[in-house]
Structures are given as structure tokens and as C-alpha cells.
């Protein structure tokens, strides 16, 4: 096994402002052998993308690469090679597939033109030869009707197809190395499965190497031969995939493997990274499985025939209706968690919005304490607003950047006249911040001073300030790193026990929903295709779509894979 690319003692720092310099990568070394898949795994800020992009020198202008660093490829140091050499290598010998296919394709050119451009630039093919080759490539990456799709614009393709086009572009010149930077993170789980299979197949057929960057150990375990685990700009551990997964040496690797919810176990609490780091690398013994919570006689919220239909103007007199949610009926019990899973566009988020009346339903009813929520006036709704609260997906977007944490937490109390005075409310806010595990000095700080996990805690505290009965978690942990995800999930479970809240837990992540939910809905194209106790659905899925969904979950490393 000879090395194709060897990265030696890579150090990259970023200049922020006049004097601040932040070290992103601190002495990273790894090799990419020929005809093999190497995975760079780590959480956000671990330096995995920066390390990979250094290979093709696609770094922002404020990056400073240490002079002693070396990246050898084909006998040259890529870090010092002249830019012309690098331009010849980029797109031909080393190609890159990015995370967001929607923003990496140029919307004003057809996909055929964009793939053809690579061929014309690097292989000097004539337009006719290039056109033939484009059709071949589209066929190879599995685009249906490739001849017709050549003239399609990116927006006419689905997300998965766009990523296939990106891959077609990347393999157009038969590269020696394909760098895939989180290529499936923005995609649905069933599409992710297809893309992973495609990459594996292409790697095999073209005998190229793949440098696969991911935060998802499940994906990595499936696809990689060699794994490099990174944290805070340092390589924590690297080795063959079977050794990393079967016998991880580093505490951080072990923690990372343990804190992801698993489909086959439901412990009372998820282990978190701190447990491992504090416990000297000894995993805390995982307690016995958590039993489903008791069910009351009557549901707290009962929705019947809930529909939301969007009407789009397609012509002067033509209207097209699109049903986001079709005739959804479900019940939410006090103190229990109802999980909602589905892929993008399945209508799962709309269900949450309809319950909160952030989106007005087209038809149906929602019974809550005898009242139909959908028929209440804005003023009558105020009392219920307090009792149903929502935690959004993106903690970076859901907090007003111009409010301090204190203002964020006291505002709902002011609106709903909770607390006797401003001082009383402030004290409550401080106590809430402490309860959700925020540092004591947070109250006068602004959201941008916190990490993603801490921001989600602020959002949780804001909901708690109104003492709600129902909490809608709309992809609330999807944007967080695996280790942070575990701590937030643990917090949500603790709070549920403490305050007896009901959760409507919406997520595309089946493992997380499996871990959190007592009951579950599976949604597909606006319809609820399967419902029932979570355990039962995972053990014996009835509907075909549920089965497809479950099969698509990355299985992680299985011994004897190859």
C-alpha cells in the first residue's frame, strides 16, 4: 500500500482581526493510501475540513499555513507548489464534493454545461466529445434519463440528484483522490444511503482514493478503510476501521462512539463526553433500559383530520394545491413523548406549526382541555400560547441577537404576567438559567457569546419560563454535535421527569426519536403512514416506507464488512 497523499505536521491558523490568531489545525499528520477510503471524523471546530481543504489549498484568505507543514502528492509539496500546478491538479487529479449541492452548483448554467466545463478545461475535449462523455457520466452516477437531464438546470433536480451531478463532475477526469466534505449531511437518510453506495461503487470501479469528511460515525464505519479521529485541531487517534471501532484506544474516540443514541438500547441517560474525560477513560456503566412512561386515560391533546393545503398561483386563473399535511390525526398524552419522523417535505414540521398556530390549518380540529385550538381568537389563544411551547432547530437563528439572555428569559414572563415584579422575574430567569446548566455569569451576555449547545439551553429555558405543559421539539438537536446532542437530550429527559411535560419530538434522525419517544408517527408526503408505540415500530415496521427508512440508517461498523 503506497501513499497517494501524505500530510505531515500540518499547522493552519486563521487571522481574526488585527492581533487575534486562532490555531485551527495543530500538527496533523496522516496518509491517504492509493485505492482506499480514509475518513476524517470530528465535531465542528475539530479542523477536519481545514485539513482536507489544505490539500487543494482551498482555504480562506486569512489562513496562515505554517512553513514547516508538508502535503506531498506526486512528488511535490502542494503547500508550496506554484498556483498553476495546483490549478492543473484541482478538478483533475484531486476533486472535491461539498456538503451543499444546492449552493455548489451554479444556478444559471445547465448541469451538462457545468460537467462539460471540467472536461473542456482539463482534457481538451471537443464540445461534441464532451457532450457524449457528460451523458456517460450522468448514466454512471445513476441519474434517470441522462440524455434529457443534460439540459436541466440545477433547480429542476432533487437534492440527491444535485449531489449526483456534483459527484459526476468530480469523477469526470478520473481523479486519483476524491475529497468528499460531508457529502450526505444535507440529504435525507434514504438519499444518503444511495449516495454512500454510489461513492463506494465508484471508488471500487475507478480505483481512486476517497477522503471522506464526516461527523457521523455511523456513516464512517460503513464506508471507511482507515479512520482519523480529530478534536480541536489535533489527531486523537488513527488506524484501520476495525481497530478504531472494535478497540478504540483514545478516551475521546470511545466517548464519541458511546454518546450517540443506539437503536438497540434505551438507557436512562446517554453517556456524555465529560463522563469519559472525567472518569479517566472508564465508561460510566450504562443503567438499565428506560421504561415507557405511564399513559393517562384521556389524551392531553387530540388532533383530528388536521390538514394544511398551500395554494400556489401557477397562471392567471390557475391554482395548484399542495398538501403539506393531509388528514393527520394523533393524540398526545400527558408526560409522554410523541415522536414524529419523516424526511424533508414530509410535513412533520408543519404539524408542530399547526399546533402552535404559527401556521393556520386549512381544516381539522385540535382538542386541548375541551377547547378547539384552531377556532380560538388571537386573544383566547394567548392563554394556550403559554401552555404549548416550541424549541426550534437552529439555536443560532431562534434567539434575537440584540437581546441579552436576561431579556430573552424575562420577556415571556412579562407578556404572560408571570412573576410579581421585574426583580422577581429577573430572579426567576437566573434560577432557570442555572437549572438548564448555563454558567452563572450568562445573564447579561448576548447569544453570540455562547456555543450551539448553550444556545439551545437558552431556548429551552425561555420555554420553561412559561411553565408549559407541552413542548414541541422541532429538530431541536439536529444542528448540534453528537456529544452536545447527548447532553441536551439528557437535559430534556430530566426536565420531562421534573415538570411532567409532554413532548412532541420531531426529527429526521431515527435513532434520536427511538431514544426519546414513547409513541411515534411516521410521515411520508404529508400523510401519517404508520403510528404506534415506538418500540413496536422499530421492531416490526408494518408500512413499506417505514421499512425503507429503517434500512437506510447507517449501520456503523460491522465486523467482516469486506
Amino acid at each position, binding site marked *: 500500500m503506497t501513499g497517494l497523499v501524505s500530510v505531515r505536521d500540518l499547522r493552519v491558523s486563521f487571522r481574526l482581526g488585527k492581533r487575534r490568531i486562532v490555531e485551527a489545525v495543530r500538527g496533523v499528520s496522516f496518509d491517504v493510501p492509493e485505492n482506499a477510503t480514509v475518513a476524517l471524523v470530528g465535531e465542528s471546530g475539530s479542523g477536519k475540513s481545514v485539513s482536507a481543504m489544505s490539500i487543494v489549498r482551498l482555504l480562506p484568505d486569512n489562513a496562515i499555513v505554517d512553513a514547516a507543514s508538508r502535503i506531498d502528492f506526486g512528488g511535490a509539496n502542494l503547500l508550496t507548489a506554484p498556483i498553476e500546478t495546483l490549478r492543473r491538479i484541482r478538478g483533475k487529479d484531486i476533486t472535491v464534493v461539498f456538503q451543499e449541492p444546492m449552493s455548489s452548483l451554479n444556478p444559471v448554467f445547465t448541469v451538462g454545461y457545468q460537467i462539460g466545463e471540467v472536461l473542456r478545461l482539463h482534457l481538451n475535449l471537443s464540445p461534441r466529445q464532451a457532450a457524449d462523455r457528460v451523458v456517460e457520466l450522468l448514466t454512471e452516477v445513476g441519474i434517470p434519463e441522462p440524455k434529457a437531464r443534460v439540459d436541466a438546470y440545477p433547480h429542476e433536480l432533487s437534492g440527491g440528484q444535485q449531489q449526483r451531478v456534483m459527484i459526476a463532475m468530480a469523477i469526470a477526469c478520473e481523479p486519483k483522490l476524491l475529497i468528499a466534505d460531508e457529502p450526505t449531511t444535507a440529504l435525507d437518510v434514504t438519499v444518503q444511503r444511495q449516495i454512500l453506495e454510489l461513492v463506494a461503487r465508484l471508488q471500487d470501479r475507478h480505483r481512486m482514493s476517497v477522503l471522506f469528511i464526516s461527523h457521523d460515525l455511523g456513516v464512517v464505519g460503513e464506508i471507511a478503510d482507515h479512520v482519523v479521529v480529530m478534536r480541536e485541531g489535533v489527531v486523537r487517534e488513527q488506524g484501520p476501521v476495525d481497530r478504531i471501532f472494535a478497540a478504540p484506544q483514545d478516551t475521546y474516540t470511545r466517548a464519541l462512539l458511546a454518546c450517540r443514541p443506539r437503536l438497540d438500547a434505551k438507557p436512562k441517560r446517554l453517556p456524555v463526553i465529560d463522563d469519559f474525560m472525567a472518569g479517566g477513560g472508564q465508561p460510566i456503566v450504562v443503567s438499565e433500559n428506560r421504561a415507557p412512561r405511564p399513559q393517562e386515560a384521556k389524551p392531553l391533546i387530540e388532533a383530528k383530520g388536521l390538514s394544511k393545503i398551500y395554494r400556489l398561483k401557477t397562471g392567471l386563473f390557475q391554482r395548484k394545491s399542495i398538501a403539506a399535511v393531509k388528514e393527520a390525526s394523533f393524540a398526545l398524552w400527558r408526560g409522554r413523548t410523541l415522536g414524529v419522523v419523516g424526511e424533508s417535505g414530509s410535513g412533520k414540521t408543519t404539524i408542530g406549526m399547526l399546533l402552535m398556530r404559527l401556521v393556520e390549518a386549512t381544516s381539522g380540529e385540535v382538542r386541548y382541555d375541551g377547547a378547539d385550538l384552531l377556532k380560538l381568537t388571537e386573544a383566547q389563544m394567548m392563554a394556550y400560547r403559554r401552555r404549548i411551547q416550541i424549541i426550534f432547530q437552529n439555536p443560532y437563528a*431562534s434567539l*434575537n441577537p*440584540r437581546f441579552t439572555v436576561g431579556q430573552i428569559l424575562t420577556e415571556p414572563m412579562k407578556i404572560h404576567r408571570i412573576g410579581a415584579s421585574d426583580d422577581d422575574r429577573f430572579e426567576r430567569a437566573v*434560577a432557570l438559567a442555572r437549572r438548564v446548566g448555563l454558567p452563572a455569569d450568562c445573564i447579561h451576555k448576548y447569544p453570540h457569546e455562547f456555543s450551539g449547545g448553550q444556545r439551545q439551553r437558552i431556548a429551552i429555558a425561555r420555554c420553561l419560563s412559561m411553565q408549559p405543559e407541552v413542548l414541541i421539539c422541532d429538530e431541536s438537536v439536529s444542528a448540534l454535535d453528537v456529544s452536545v446532542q447527548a447532553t441536551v437530550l439528557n437535559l430534556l429527559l430530566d426536565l420531562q421527569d421534573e415538570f411532567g411535560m409532554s413532548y412532541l419530538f420531531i426529527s429526521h434522525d431515527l435513532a434520536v426519536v427511538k431514544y426519546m419517544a414513547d409513541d411515534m408517527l411516521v410521515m411520508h408526503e404529508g400523510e401519517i403512514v404508520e403510528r404506534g408505540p415506538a418500540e413496536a415500530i422499530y421492531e416490526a415496521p408494518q408500512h413499506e416506507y417505514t421499512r425503507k427508512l429503517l434500512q437506510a440508517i447507517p449501520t456503523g461498523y460491522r465486523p467482516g464488512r469486506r
Partner: protein
Amino acid sequence: MAAIAEPVLPDEAPRSQGVWGAAWTRLKADRVGMVSLAVVAAFLVLILLSALGVVAGSWQLERGVPYAPPSFLGSRENVEAQAIDLAGPMGPPVDISDIDPLAPKYEEWQRRAREIQVTSPPRAETLPFGADRWGRDVLAKAVKGAQMSIFVGVFAAVVATFIGTLLGAIGGYVGGRVGDFFEWLYNVFTSVPDILLIFAFAAVFGRGISTVVLILGLVGWTGMYRQVRAEYIKHASREYVRAAQAIGASHLSRMFVHILPNISHVVLVRMSLLVVGFIKAEVILSFLGLGVPIELVSWGTMLAEAQTELVIGKWWQLAAATLFMAVFLTAFSMLTDALRDALDPKLR
């Protein structure tokens, strides 16, 4: 909620740097921004002093000879001044006393006129930045003109910002028919050429400084409206606004407590651009005779006078007005640019 009732105050919670504080820190690090801030501040001090009458209070005094050149050019032959001094009849006197019925009285009038002592102070041959046609100090005029022009520019920008922000906020946030109505209003205003609108308003309101401010404000709000409206449309669907709706915040609170601070940097930057634009507009208005009244001075009236002077080679009034305007507007624009960088949370 027993756990929450427990009143624990954090010991020594350090107050964090607010958004504006952070912006100030970033602005301080910007050398160009700080220099332009100093220039703008100097101008503001200057117009404050001029408004209090400390400097340039006597700009109307005719202190120099007509068209006195700037001191740095030295005293050179001032043909025009001599021409104005010798404004009496030229050529050989013609005796017309036999047909002039007033002829007998001339002698007496001249005698009486000599009795009145006219003390005209000695006129300077040169002035620091020269003199205008009547011998008024150009430097004092430029300072006084700065006061007028900047006053008009700033206040008109405030008026336009207020109108534009209010309409933009309502139009963008409420949308629907209300939004359509404002769009229609916007279209009407932008479809009429600005200069025509200005004439129309000027005809209705008459002349005066407050009229100029009002006219510019009423004509110039459209750009601000458009941008604020776009920002509101964008922000109204943001998650933090939805979160505010979820906790039950009212429409007014969402519009002005939640969204407005988040777009304040757009408003501020746009407003400073308006100041620059309105100062130039005032110049044009005054040039056309629709601007500040004749007994006052602004950079615009100076430029209007300079037009005729330039033909006979007296360039200093033009130079003074242009220099003042260019320095102030450049500094102000660069300050605006620095402000934009300092205030935009995305550039962090």
C-alpha cells in the same frame, strides 16, 4: 416549579459588552473610520460654533476689496475691483444743464452729501481665502454655508428615514393589501422625476429652510422604504421572530422591539448615505433658486455665485465651497462605510 422559585443571584455577573459597545470597539480598530470620524466631528464642532456665532458670525461684512484674491496668491492686479470702483460715468462730461431741470440743485446736494461722514473701513487687498464680488470673506462664507448645508442634509435625512422606516416596516411586516398600497404609493413617487416633485412641493410650500428640509424628506424616503421593507420581509420569517410569536409577543412588539434593532445598522447606514445625497441636493436646489433664501448662505448658493465668477477667472469661491464639501462628504461616506462594517453582525 419549586426549583425555579429559589432566588439566587449570580455573584458579580459581569455586564457583557452590548451590541453597540462591540461595534464601537470594532470601529476603534478601523484607522480610516477613526480619521473620518475625527473629520466629521471637527465639522460638527465648527457648525456648532458657527451656530452660536463664535466663528463666521460676521460673514456678511464686506471686509475686502471686491474679488480680493486669497493671501497665498499674494496681491496681484485686481482689474475687476478697479472696474467696480470706477463705476462712475466714463468719457468727457457733457453739459446738459440747460435741459436738466434739476441742474441748479446739484451743487447744494453735493454740499449736503459731503456733510455726512461716511466712514467705510479700509478694505483689505487680500483675504485668507479671497473675497467674493462684494468683498465678503469666502472662508467665513464657507463655514456659515457648512452650517446651513449640513443642517439641511441631516434634518432632511431624519425626516426621510422616519417616513421610509415606518412605511417600510408596515409594508414589509404586514404585507398583503397594506403592502400593496405602500408599493403603489412608492411607485407613484418614483415614477415622477424628482426635480418635478421638488418643484411641485416648492410651489405649494413656498421658500424657506424648513421647506427645503421637508421637500427633500418627502421626496427622498423611497430608497429607505424599499430597503427597510425588504429587510422586514426577510426578518419576519426568521426563527427568532417566530419564537417571539410563539411566546405570545404582539405584532407591534415583534415589529419594533424584535426586528427593528436587528436592522438598525441598515437604517443607520442608509441614513448617512441620505445625508450625503441631500447635501448635494440642497446645492442643486439653491443653484436653481428653490433652496435656501437669498439672505442666507449655503454651499449651494456659493456654487451658484461661483458660476459667474469663474468666467472672469475668480475661482476661489468655487474652490472653497468644493473643498469644504468634498472633505466633509468624503469623510462622512468613509465613516458610513466604517460604521457599516462595525455594525453588521454578519461581518464578525
